[in-house]
């Protein structure tokens, strides 16, 4: 790991009128690190993720990103063109519902190739070869390349969404409940795949989940949120094995043991 953080989040707060979305969240994310944000629903996890990924404008605070040219840029001071370019090249965003992140009416190949075409790739053969390669990496048969995502199962859609995001070689991926709505065996396969990809590509990731097992498997560090505040923050194993806050203890002890 290098000695400069990839992302510096300072005092992010988001208010919905007088209601709190999230409050005074600060952390650094390091290159190659996977951070999990856990908490019950309504605790502000997704609000925080949307603020960091510039999908929402936070009420206060700043997010600085370490660009490829080794400078830090404040995301909310960039212009929209730069921000959108960053989002579709150096970042990825995996939605909970694949239909939000995919174009359901175009083929799997075009879904994977869209980002390539957006950054100026104009060779059909190369785009298609890259799409085949990525479909294989996410364990989708290459002969499904011309099928529309609506013909795919939930797990396949989610893997396609991941492939679509990773095709430009991003350095930071945001995931919002990536395993939500999948059955347990498909979840396990997806987690295995994501873990492999994150390791191989040296990705940094911020994963929002309510599932502590997902956090345990994927993340190095985790933050526990409640009512918009980060109440506990530490290495995943430490937080799960030795929770300090009463709420975290409750959360950890409420995992079903089968």
């Amino acid at each position: 790991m290098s000695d400069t953080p990839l992302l510096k989040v300072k005092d992010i707060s988001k208010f919905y009128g007088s209601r709190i979305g999230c409050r005074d969240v600060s952390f650094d994310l390091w290159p190659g690190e996977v951070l999990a944000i856990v908490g019950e629903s309504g605790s502000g996890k997704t609000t925080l993720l949307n603020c960091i990924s510039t999908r929402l404008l936070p009420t206060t605070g700043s997010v600085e990103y370490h660009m490829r040219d080794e400078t830090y840029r404040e995301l909310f001071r960039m212009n929209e063109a730069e921000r959108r370019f960053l989002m579709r090249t150096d970042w990825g965003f995996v939605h909970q519902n694949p239909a939000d992140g995919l174009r359901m009416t175009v083929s799997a190949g075009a879904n994977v190739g869209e980002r390539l075409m957006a950054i100026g790739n104009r060779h059909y053969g190369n785009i298609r070869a890259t799409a085949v390669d990525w479909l294989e990496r996410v364990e989708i048969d290459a002969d499904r390349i011309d099928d529309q995502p609506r013909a795919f199962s939930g797990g396949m859609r989610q893997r396609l969404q991941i492939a679509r995001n990773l095709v430009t070689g991003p350095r930071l991926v945001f995931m919002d409940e990536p395993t939500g709505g999948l059955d347990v065996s498909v979840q396990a396969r997806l987690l295995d795949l994501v873990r492999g990809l994150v390791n191989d590509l040296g990705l940094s990731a911020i994963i929002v989940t309510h599932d502590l097992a997902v956090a345990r498997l994927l993340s190095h560090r985790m933050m526990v949120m409640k009512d918009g505040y980060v109440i506990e923050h530490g290495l995943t194993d430490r937080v799960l094995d030795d929770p300090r806050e009463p709420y975290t203890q409750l959360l950890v002890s409420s995992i079903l043991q089968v």
Partner: protein
Amino acid sequence: MTDLATYNFAYLDEQTKRMIRRAILKAIAIPGYQVPFASREMPMPYGWGTGGVQLTAAIIGPDDVLKVIDQGADDTTNAVSIRAFFQKVANVAVTTRTEEATIIQTRHRIPETKLGPNQVLVYQVPIPEPLRYLEPRETETRKMHALEEYGLMHVKLYEDIARNGRIATTYAYPVKVAGRYVMDPSPTPKFDNPKMHLSDALQLFGAGREKRIYAVPPYTDVVSLDFEDHPFEVQRFDKPCALCGAEQVYLDEVILDDKGGRMFVCSDTDFCEDRRAHGHVGPMLAPNGLAPNGLAPNQEAAE
């Protein structure tokens, strides 16, 4: 001019023309950019060319000579009605001959005869937004135009090749104007796309229902989008025009009977008639001995 007492010249009032002219000037200044304008109710239904009619009404003067075509033909309903409309409300000279016209209002074709610098081509546009079917949100497509995010346009072409093995889009084929804006050239066949490139004539596009005006100034780059390994190509026809024998022109298929009989003729009727008047004869006329105007088929051997 007493007959015109109930109308202002060219139907629209002067303030409306002024508003449209301002939109036209802006459109010319930013080639390919869709300029919103306050489209008026016209005495014809949407889809009949209300955008084109408003453009023509805003730019036409008493000395102009107007030609109106619909799918290349001067004698179809849409063309005849619009031509009659301007004869009535502006009392201008009309023509079917491309060379004589100063303003040509068109639906879905560009004339085969090369246009000159003193001519204006006015297109009737049903859907001005090339990204519409890929991204239904207007707010989003405007942002994409503003930020020059046109990757989605190639997604459409990619899908074409993935499904059909080649780019199967044959009309409303997207073009990039002056290296900046992606534009829908209205539903002209892609055969006509190369004619837009570095054209001598000013090209104006009006969408009445969608309330948009855009333009391609003379001598502007108009490049059809494509892939490096699937370059842009225009349609080809196996046979020449059945009536005038023209090749390298856009042909319409005409069904002759219910036994599979068909003929292919020039879609540009003026071009076809002009050629026949000059003695060119196509395969369907040749066996009958005499071509129109009394020229025998062998007399056109000069070609």
